[in-house]
């Protein structure tokens, strides 16, 4: 571009003067541009073509008026708007002296003319007036509704017509960004999120999306010689039987039923290679009846439901399999459900019961709905009430001129994405609630089928296909001819940006608050880790079922190991030490999640371990009660504890009771006031636990009279103390226990006399009648 004799001539210093010099050279440089001023520039042809096109514009309002008779008002508005926009844009490009050009004058006169704004353009680009005219030429050609314009234009052109276009295209400026400002980044013709066209055609899309000059595609592919006349409505076209248009080489994913898109393509197909409409272009085609696009969809669902879906290529392959199975009739004017029905019926053999991606229940639902719709349509014919509702809906759809703006293809595209999101290697992990819900449903329906003789649906087993995990070996981006690899970090290849070193702070520096906070955080972390272990352990049962025989011992070992680690986490095991303090456990129990977790872990622990937990809880109960005041989660521990109690021997129960009531070791010692017990009794959980313990003790005593006397004695002693304490506690502020065991009366009757028994009864509300 910069024509310097040698390197030395290049301005090396990059100060402002040099740049200005460059700027001045712009015009010189442009002169060397072949496309605009060189051999590509031929004057004669384009002017003629341009004049012809200008004539077209005069014809166009007429053509449009014709069309409004058939089409909707809105389409007319669309076109009208379009022309006005076009006019604005054109006039903005016009530089004043251009108005003398007769071709332009004629063109501009047909529309309301706005004032030219020369200032809006960057003069260095738009300097050449010839450039401007040439730009407008192809622009006019594109912005018209392509149908009428080109079909008028083409026959009139001299035989070198295609060459003209080529010349035009070469002479037109190369693709520019949408804004006239130099240096703005190139705009993607097709925004990244748009659904893929069958084949992306940047040129045509650009014509729509950016109204700037663009290479017009050179010679057309074989045009259909419009055997049906220029102005057939889409519906008419479709209803033509055996039309050669159907032989259009559409990509296999589009069914033979002419979707609105295809009709539009047919109309505009004269110019384009097939299948290259962008959705936005489609919007200009007159609104048409929302014909049932049912053809693909049930097929899609059923087949898709059964299909393992690898990424896109496999999916498309599936699509191509679908259409041959169901050749729907071409006529679209039967009542809406008609072809729908036929499609559905023809799809039954396609049904694949062996693989289910979603769930067999889904297919059942689908069948049900299909059957429903069939029933409704039968009743519709008989003018049933339910049918009428549906038919009014159908009518509404038919009358809605804006229906089906979203093409079938686009709908499929979205649902394809959604289906891809459902693929998973481990559905239980990814989609737990869904799986469980449908298992429940299945069990219910299986139960029902066993009982009653309901219509027997297919009994399919749920086999969720596992998508193979593809190992993507990440290969870093490499440019040709460069040395080494780019170190660009991306989602697949994350790189460490900051070297953050964790420095542990010394204990002295911290304030008390920080220490407390850190400790709490550590506890939270431990809870989280233990919870993960718990979830794994809970999952083992399911895994047993799915695994092979050989793997099971290994699984069992793993499970045991995890249970041990859970317990160690709970009790804060330090290697090589006894468990000196309950502190760790108590910390966990102070947090609501910790309590719930302990409740869930208890069933998995061994008896000793669980008893240990229970003892620790009892020992620290007042503290825990205090901490639980806000959460009130302790009662969730009640049931696992009760369950545990029924496995505990008498000795343990005795000591447990002691702990719980904070009873002194010997009966003889004078009993001071017992705030521990008071706290326990005033709390729902505490009181309930106490009662359960008492009940258990009573059971043990009464069931096993021949136990060791020592144990008996101990128990009796403790009971004496217990009753003493209970009698001392004032009645007010006793909590309401979750449940009151029934054998307490007999329990107490052994240890106290009548009078005190009555007292106890009333106090603890042991007798049912009082409550």
């Amino acid at each position, binding site marked *: 571009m910069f024509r310097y004799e040698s390197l030395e001539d290049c301005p090396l210093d990059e100060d402002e003067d040099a740049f200005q010099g460059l700027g001045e050279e712009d015009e010189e440089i442009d002169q060397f541009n072949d496309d605009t001023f060189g051999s590509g520039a031929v004057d004669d042809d384009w002017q003629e073509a341009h004049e012809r096109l200008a004539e077209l514009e005069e014809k166009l309002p007429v053509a449009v008026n014709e069309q409004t008779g058939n089409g909707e008002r809105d389409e007319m508005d669309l076109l009208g708007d379009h022309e006005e926009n076009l006019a604005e844009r054109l006039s903005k490009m016009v530089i004043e002296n251009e108005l003398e050009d007769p071709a332009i004058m004629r063109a501009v006169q047909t529309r309301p003319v706005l004032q030219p704004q020369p200032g809006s353009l960057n003069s260095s680009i738009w300097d050449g007036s010839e450039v401007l005219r040439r730009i407008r030429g192809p622009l006019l050609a594109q912005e018209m509704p392509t149908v009428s314009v080109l079909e008028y234009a083409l026959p009139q052109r001299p035989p070198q017509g295609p060459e003209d276009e080529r010349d035009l295209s070469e002479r037109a400026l190369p693709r520019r960004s949408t804004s006239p400002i130099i240096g703005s980044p190139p705009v993607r013709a097709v925004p990244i999120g748009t659904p893929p066209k069958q084949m992306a055609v940047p040129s045509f899309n650009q014509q729509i999306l950016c109204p700037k000059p663009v290479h017009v595609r050179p010679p057309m592919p074989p045009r259909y010689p419009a055997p049906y006349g220029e102005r057939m409505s889409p519906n008419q076209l479709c209803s033509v039987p055996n039309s050669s248009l159907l032989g259009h080489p559409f990509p296999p994913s589009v069914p033979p039923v002419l979707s609105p898109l295809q009709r539009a393509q047919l109309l505009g197909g004269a110019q384009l290679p097939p299948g290259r409409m962008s959705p936005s272009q489609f919007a200009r085609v007159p609104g048409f009846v929302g014909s049932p696009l049912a053809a693909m969809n049930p097929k*899609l669902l059923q087949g898709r439901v059964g299909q393992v879906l690898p990424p896109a290529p496999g999916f498309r392959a599936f699509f191509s399999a679908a259409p041959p199975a169901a050749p729907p009739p071409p006529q679209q004017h039967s009542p809406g459900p008609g072809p729908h029905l036929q499609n559905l019926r023809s799809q039954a053999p396609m049904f694949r019961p062996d693989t289910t991606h979603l769930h067999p229940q*889904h297919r059942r639902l689908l069948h049900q709905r299909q059957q429903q719709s069939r029933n409704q349509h039968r009743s519709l014919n008989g003018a049933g009430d339910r049918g009428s*509702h549906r038919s009014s809906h159908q009518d509404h759809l038919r009358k809605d001129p*804006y229906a089906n703006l979203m093409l079938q293809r686009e*709908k499929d595209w*979205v*649902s394809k994405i*959604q289906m891809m999101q459902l693929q998973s290697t481990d559905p239980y992990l990814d989609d737990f609630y869904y799986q469980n819900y*449908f298992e429940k449903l299945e069990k219910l329906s299986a139960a029902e089928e066993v009982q009653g003789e309901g219509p027997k649906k297919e009994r399919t087993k749920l086999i969720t296909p596992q998508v193979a995990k593809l190992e993507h070996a990440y290969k870093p981006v490499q440019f040709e001819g460069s040395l080494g690899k780019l170190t660009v970090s991306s989602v697949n290849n994350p790189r460490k940006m900051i070297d953050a070193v964790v420095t542990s702070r010394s204990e002295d520096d911290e304030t008390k608050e920080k220490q407390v906070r850190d400790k709490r955080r550590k506890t939270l972390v431990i809870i989280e880790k233990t919870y993960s272990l718990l979830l794994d352990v809970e999952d083992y049962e399911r895994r047993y079922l799915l695994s092979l025989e050989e793997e099971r011992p290994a699984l069992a070992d793993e499970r045991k190991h995890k249970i041990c680690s859970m317990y160690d986490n709970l009790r804060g095991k330090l290697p090589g030490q006894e468990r000196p303090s309950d502190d760790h456990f108590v910390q966990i129990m102070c947090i609501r999640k910790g309590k719930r977790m302990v409740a869930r872990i208890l069933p998995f622990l061994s008896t000793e371990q669980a008893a240990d937990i229970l003892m620790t809880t009892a020992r620290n109960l007042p503290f825990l009660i205090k901490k639980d005041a806000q959460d009130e989660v302790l009662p969730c521990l009640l049931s696992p504890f009760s369950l545990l109690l029924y496995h505990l021997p008498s000795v343990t129960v005795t000591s447990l009771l002691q702990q719980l009531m904070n009873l002194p070791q010997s009966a003889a010692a004078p009993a001071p006031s017992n705030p521990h017990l008071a706290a326990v009794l005033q709390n729902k959980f505490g009181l309930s636990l106490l009662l359960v313990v008492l009940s258990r003790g009573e059971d043990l005593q009464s069931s096993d009279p021949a136990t060791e006397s020592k144990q008996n004695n101990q128990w009796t002693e403790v009971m004496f103390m217990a009753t003493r304490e209970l009698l001392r506690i004032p009645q007010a502020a006793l909590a309401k226990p979750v449940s009151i065991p029934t054998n307490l009366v007999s329990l107490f009757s052994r240890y106290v006399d009548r009078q005190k028994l009555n007292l106890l009864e009333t106090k603890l509300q042991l007798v049912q009648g009082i409550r």
Partner: protein
Amino acid sequence: MNYMPGTASLIEDIDKKHLVLLRDGRTLIGFLRSIDQFANLVLHQTVERIHVGKKYGDIPRGIFVVRGENVVLLGEIDLEKESDTPLQQVSIEEILEEQRVEQQTKQEAEKLKVQALKDRGLSIPRADTLDEY
């Protein structure tokens, strides 16, 4: 036509009249014309409905393109039951006036509350200033 039964797919809702509640509290009613995988919506012949008490007013808005993340919920409107409401439709000016009045009373109540708390030496931390970690 059954797209993915058992899932929340919007495909079957296309071309039907919907009521959409946005995160900023607006209520839009329009025909759902197009969606994408993010649940971005294109609403046609949209009307913004303002509710104050038992009254409501409709402001016609045309075409709306709503970014999916801003939708709180949406649901199909049964066209036959649509007119079956105990609410009373009023003009736009009136409903806007009512809305303004409602906003005003709310603000005043809030002010009083904050003042009362301040008098007692308390303050409610606002959500944006909460900073735990």
